[in-house]
């Protein structure tokens, strides 16, 4: 159990990388990048976990009565999610333009430059 969550994060990251490398569709590739990014969420939350702890929110928990998980990595994960969403939006906008200009979303067919 000790390192399993970390290994899960590594596995998700590698699965995303494999998808990126073998992708035949740019939209699929953007999805794979999101999979890679979700590995970082798992890793960050796993690093911050504490046994038998609750969420670091004290609106209904008396401070000091229970251990709480690490709030710093949770905030980092939040940042991560936001940046991931914006990157996905920007990449999808690029895919829309690529598909319009070149008539294809297969990265292998986009290899030659056209002026």
């Amino acid at each position, binding site marked *: 159990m000790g390192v399993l969550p970390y290994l899960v994060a*590594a596995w998700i990251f590698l699965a995303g990388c494999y998808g990126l490398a073998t992708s035949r569709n740019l939209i699929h590739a953007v999805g794979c990048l999101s999979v890679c990014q979700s590995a970082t969420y798992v890793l960050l939350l796993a690093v911050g976990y504490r046994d038998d702890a609750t969420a*670091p929110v*004290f609106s209904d928990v008396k401070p000091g009565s229970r251990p709480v998980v690490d*709030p*710093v*990595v949770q905030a980092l994960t*939040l*940042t991560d999610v936001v940046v991931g969403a914006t990157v996905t939006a*920007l990449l999808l*906008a690029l895919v829309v333009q690529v598909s319009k200009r070149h008539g294809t979303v297969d990265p292998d067919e986009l290899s030659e430059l056209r002026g």
Partner: protein
Amino acid sequence: MSRRVRLWLVAVGGGALAALLVAACLDLPAFGGARHPYGDRAVREALARHTANTVASVNFDQRAFDTLGEMTILFAAVLGCVVLLRQTRDEHRARPEPEPVALPVRRYALVVLPVALLTGLYVVAHGQLSPGGGFQGGVVAATSLHLLYLGADYRALERIRPVGLYEVGDALAVSAYLVTGIAGLIGGSAFLANTLLPYGTFNTLSSGGTVPLLNAAIGMEVACAVVVLLARFLDQAVEIEEEGK
């Protein structure tokens, strides 16, 4: 590079990376351990500043400057999407035709819309107290408006969603965050330092000093940004057509 060569390269590189990652994982502190020095300090600081939601305190107080950077990324990405998805010279706008909507879908969408909008605003307003905050609530509020697209049609959505106004709102929210930061500077301490306002009573809406203000600014920015982003993508899908079609 042929697909075979590429697959081999991925296999070799991925295998080596996997080995390194596993070695790194085995060296990390054990999962669920009790030692979290930064977490303990963040909790102590958040309680000292009467912010019940420690994550909000980390984002809008202790790491407020990083959130400014994060917000700038969001703003820049929206700007990039607006530029990338603009109407080009060889395209024209087609008038979207109203489509028939199944009655249960229409009823459900119109009933859920106000509930979802209110939930989004509630999550933004209670960001310093309960799980959630500007980022999450902003997304909920922005997507709730788009239930009108599902329940009615695109023209109904366009009537309640003047995109220009939301673009201005996005910029205003970013400015509001900056102004709150500069207010700290003028008030005699550091940029974005949470020393200006009283910390208030623990676990009430006005607690946490500048945390609720920054939280609200982020909520407004995220809501406006998501509306603008979705509007640009929907324009591409519904309205903008190539010439000659």
